C-alpha cells in the first residue's frame, strides 16, 4: 500500500509538471494568438503576410514534429532550451496559431455594423479596436479559447516522448517499476479529466463574468 502511495506521489509530481506546462503554454499561446490574430487583420500588408505564414506553418506541421524540432534541432542551431522551455515553446506556438484564427474570426464576427459606427463616430482604428471591437470579441473568443486550452493540456502528454517528466511520463516510469499497467494509466486518465474540467469551469465562470454587461444580447 505504501508503495502505491509512493508511486502516486511520483505521478502527482508529474501532474505538477503537466499543470505548469499547461499554464505557461496557455499564456504563451494567448500572447501569440493575439499577436498573430490582430496581425492578420492589420492594415499593413507585410504584417498580414507574416501572421498568415506563422499560422499556416504551425497549423500545417504536426505538433509532434514541432516538438521534436524544438527539442533536438534548435539546440544544434545554437539555441539551447530546457525541456520545459522547449515544451512551452512548441505548445505555445502551435496552439497560438489556432488561437490566432479564433482572434481573427471573433474580430471579424463583430460585424461591419460596429466598425461602421466607429467610423461614423470618428474613432481611429486603434481606438475602435481597443474600446469597441476587442471588448466584444473577447466574449466571442472565450469558449473557443477554453477548448484550445484543453487541447493544449492534452497535447502536453506528448512531451513525455521527449523525456520531460510530465504526468504521462511518470506513469510510464511507475509502470516499468511496478509492472502494473492499469494503475498508472487509469490514475492519469482521471487526473487529466479533472484538469480539463477545471479549465472548463474556469472558462465558464470567466464567460459569465465578461458577458454580464451584455444582459443576454448575444445568446
Amino acid at each position, binding site marked *: 500500500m505504501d508503495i502505491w502511495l509512493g508511486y502516486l506521489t511520483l505521478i502527482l509530481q508529474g501532474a505538477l509538471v503537466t499543470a505548469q506546462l499547461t499554464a505557461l503554454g496557455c499564456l504563451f499561446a494567448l500572447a501569440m494568438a493575439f499577436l498573430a490574430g490582430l496581425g492578420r487583420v492589420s492594415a499593413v500588408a507585410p504584417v498580414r503576410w507574416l501572421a498568415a505564414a506563422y499560422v499556416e506553418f504551425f497549423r500545417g506541421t504536426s505538433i509532434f514534429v514541432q516538438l521534436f524540432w524544438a527539442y533536438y534541432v534548435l539546440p544544434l542551431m545554437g539555441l539551447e532550451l530546457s525541456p520545459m522551455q522547449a515544451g512551452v515553446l512548441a505548445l505555445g506556438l502551435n496552439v497560438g496559431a489556432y488561437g490566432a484564427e479564433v482572434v481573427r474570426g471573433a474580430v471579424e464576427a463583430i460585424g461591419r455594423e460596429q466598425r461602421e459606427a466607429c467610423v*461614423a463616430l470618428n474613432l481611429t482604428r486603434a481606438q475602435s479596436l481597443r474600446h469597441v471591437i476587442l471588448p466584444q470579441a473577447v466574449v466571442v473568443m472565450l469558449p473557443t479559447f477554453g477548448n484550445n486550452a484543453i487541447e493544449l493540456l492534452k497535447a502536453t502528454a506528448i512531451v513525455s516522448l521527449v523525456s520531460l517528466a510530465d504526468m504521462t511520463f511518470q506513469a510510464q516510469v511507475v509502470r516499468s517499476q511496478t509492472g502494473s499497467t492499469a494503475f498508472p494509466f487509469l490514475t492519469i486518465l482521471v487526473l487529466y479529466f479533472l484538469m480539463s474540467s477545471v479549465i472548463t469551469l474556469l472558462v465558464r465562470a470567466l464567460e459569465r463574468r465578461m458577458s454580464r454587461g451584455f444582459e443576454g444580447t448575444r445568446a
Partner: protein
Amino acid sequence: MSAPIIQLQDVSKRFGELTVLDRLSFEVAPGEKLALIGPSGSGKTTILRLLMTLETPTDGMVMVEGEPLFHQRRGDALVPADERHLHRMRARIGMVFQHFNLFPHKSVCENVCLAPVLTQGAKPADARRRAMELLDMVGLSAKADAMPAQLSGGQKQRVAIARALALSPRIMLFDEVTSALDPELVEEVLNVMHMLARETDMTMLLVTHEMGFAHDFADRVLFFDRGRIVEEGPPDEIFKNPRQDRTQAFLRKVVAAGHRV
C-alpha cells in the same frame, strides 16, 4: 443663397459590374433638410455611406464645406486623401443607422460619451454632463445607466441619435432610422427628429420610406432611380404633383401598399 455645405460633382460608384451611382451631381445648402426617396436599390443608402466615408467613390468629386472629402492638396495636385485627412473631415458629419449599431457592451451614457472623450479630448465629467443633456433632449435621461439590450427599438434609436449629436456635427445623415422599428415605436423617434429639424440649424440628409414624414420634415425632396436623380423639388410639389412617370408610379405603389389609413 450661401455657399453649399455639400457638393457632389459627377460622382459615380460602381461595385464590380454594377453601377450604383451614375455621374450624380447635387448640392445641399447649409441648414437645409433634404429627403432622399426612391425605390429599393436606387442608391440612396450609398450616398449617405459615401458622405460618411464608409465607401469611396469610383469617380467624381465630393466637397464638404468647400473642401474635397476624398482628396487632399499636395502642392498643386489633388491626391487621394490619407487617413488623417479623412479623420479631420469626418468630425463634421454624423450618421444614424437603420439598425442603431449601439455598442452593446457599453451603457447608454458610455455610448454617448465615448467618442467625445476619445476624439475630442473632452474631460469625462464634461462629456457626461453633455451626454445627460442630450439624453434629456431625446427623453432618455432616466435610462443613462441602462445597457442597450434593456431598451426597446425606439429607445435604442434615440440613443443612437444622441450619440451622433454628441460630436456636434454640422451635417447629420439618417438612413431609414425607423424601418427596423415596430410601428408603435416609430412615433417617438420621428418626434425627436422633428424637434431636431425645428430647433437646430444642422444640415440633415434623410433616407426614408415614410412618405408622410419626408413630406413634413424636408425642405426639399430628391427622387432617385437607378443611381440618378429623376426629380427634385419641394415636398408639396413632389408628393402632390410629381412630373415624372417614374415618380408617379413609385408613389402610387407605396400608397397601394397600405399606407393610407
